[in-house]
């Protein structure tokens, strides 16, 4: 086919620029918003997803990890005695107060874990070792939260509910959704920092033996325990994600912004392609008079839309990658998995093709007799 679509698209540079601006805007907005959504999603469930536990024991009806309720730690023995359990550990996640060297206090989430366990540990450790958490008053913090915690590096000290906390390890990139940073410590310290009694725990993490069906184990444990829920890692992760993203409305707000971006893209592209079609209406009428079918003319218009989509996507995704990269240096956590990038190409093409339907409707109604009107 002679390059009618391409030439019509590139002929008017201003209109092309407007079209591409609309596509780029839509791509960047959608990618950033969906990237935020993915980032939020991963952040809200990070502790659960990275726990390496097959099962979680939580107090009855606890909807998400930040709302744990203390229960008797004796249930740990019942769990360990259950057939199919390879390892079980108490685990604490609780809000408490961090007092900086300058006296300012910040809310944190203390995470208490057995340093010798395979489960519930800090990850992305960039300084220190897990074994260092065996020491009294030892904590791991994340470098992102240095300013918030008033910490500059290893060896710095602070207070948690009147008790000393010394930084013995650092992580990189462990974010929280609540703005209260995770501070990892050993279980013994965490009882004190979280004002819990020795006979209390917040959660129990469970590792199944190799070859054991996790769901069967979950049911057996649930049958043997009272006043608690036994959840798979995935279940607890989904519950936590659902609460933060949907019950609070945060996720919906992000998704709505993405939908808005899509709508803006459709409207802008529809308007410019329609404007181009109107400018070339006589040509389409001539094509019809020459014997072109409606399908042939649709192909010309669709080709215009797809070319605009591909160029706009290339520009938009490049800009999005830049935005994602820069956001990593700040507080926002925008994640761009390759699936989102690839999916965005499909969505961009679909957006532009949908926008072109307005023009298609117009050319369908062209009266070819118009070509005789000088």
């Amino acid at each position, binding site marked *: 086919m002679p*390059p009618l679509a391409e030439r019509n698209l590139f002929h008017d540079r201003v209109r092309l620029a407007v079209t591409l601006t609309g596509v780029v805007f839509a791509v960047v907005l959608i990618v950033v918003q969906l990237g935020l959504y993915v980032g939020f999603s991963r952040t809200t469930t990070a502790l659960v997803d990275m726990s390496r536990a097959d099962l979680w024991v939580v107090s009855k009806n606890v909807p998400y990890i930040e709302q744990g309720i203390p229960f008797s730690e004796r249930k740990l023995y019942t769990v360990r005695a259950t057939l199919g359990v390879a390892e079980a550990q108490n685990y604490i996640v609780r809000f408490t107060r961090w007092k900086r060297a300058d006296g300012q206090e910040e809310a944190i989430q203390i995470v208490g874990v057995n340093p010798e366990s395979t489960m519930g540990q800090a990850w992305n450790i960039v300084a220190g070792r897990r074994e260092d958490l065996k020491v009294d008053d030892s904590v791991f913090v994340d470098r992102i939260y240095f300013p918030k915690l008033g910490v500059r590096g290893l060896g710095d000290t602070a207070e948690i509910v009147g008790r000393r906390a010394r930084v013995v390890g650092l992580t990189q990139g462990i974010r929280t959704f609540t703005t209260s940073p995770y501070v990892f410590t050993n279980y013994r310290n965490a009882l004190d920092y979280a004002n819990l009694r020795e006979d209390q725990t917040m959660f129990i993490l469970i590792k199944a033996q190799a070859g054991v069906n996790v769901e069967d184990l979950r049911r057996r444990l649930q049958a043997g325990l009272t006043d608690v829920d036994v959840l798979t890692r995935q279940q607890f992760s989904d519950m936590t994600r659902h609460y933060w993203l949907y019950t609070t409305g945060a996720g919906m707000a992000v998704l709505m912004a993405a939908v808005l971006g899509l709508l803006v893209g459709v409207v802008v592209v529809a308007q410019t392609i329609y404007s181009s079609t109107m400018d070339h209406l006589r040509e389409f009428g*001539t094509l019809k*008079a020459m*014997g072109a079918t409606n399908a042939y003319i649709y192909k010309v218009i669709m080709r215009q839309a797809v070319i605009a989509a591909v160029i706009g996507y290339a520009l938009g995704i490049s800009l999005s990658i830049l935005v994602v990269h820069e956001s990593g240096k700040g507080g926002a956590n925008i994640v761009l998995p390759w699936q989102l990038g690839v999916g965005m190409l499909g969505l961009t093409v679909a957006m532009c093709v949908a926008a072109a339907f307005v023009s298609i409707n117009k050319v369908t109604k062209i009266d070819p007799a118009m070509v005789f009107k000088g």
Partner: protein
Amino acid sequence: MEHPIAVRELTKVYGAGPTAFRALDTVNLEVERGEVMLLMGPSGSGKTTLISILGCILRPTSGSVKILGKEVTRLGEKQLPRVRLENIGFIFQGFNLFPTLTAGENVELALDLKGQRGPAAKRRARGFLEQVGLGPKYDSFPADLSGGEKQRVAIARAVATEPQVVLADEPTAALDWHSGRTVMGMLRELAHRHGRAVVVVTHDNRVVEYGDRVVRIEDGRILNDSTEPAPLDESSVISNQSSVVSFQ
């Protein structure tokens, strides 16, 4: 052998009731192969309506229209594009070239509609342009061509699909007379040497000498149908077409 164009009791009425306007009124007409028929009449006489119906672009209110013996008034809307593509070439007053395509690509577009693509189509397109004396202008855009050259590209495009019928609506109206003579000479050659049925709608009395037949229409009716127009001085036509190569 059937006439390329045969029209019987053709009527076209726009609107209805008291405001109805009868653009064509029981028109009977046949166009022969190898004939240049001039359709002449004042503005509003029905010329454009008639040529639109002959081109299967407009539907008559009643009557019969046969293109190469096939009754087209009974065809569905989706069948008419194929009738136009296979049988009819159009030449317009305003040239109607695609401004963003080169002269060669304009001709290629017609071939593309018939499913002819690639290097072979390019060669054919170049051939048609050479036949109208515009081979060197293959890569020129319409904006870089004179009016006469644009109309010659339009002629090349119209004949590229090898139609048996060529309909030209005021083909010389936007041209100087020298260019107009060249264009009319080409249309005459299409008819006489290549056996096409050529219908030319025109106001211009100067083109009468190029017609084999003049049909005058007024108020939607055929006034007279003369097969003896003023004789054409062939030598004067040839002397003004020095840049034109014969259609093959």
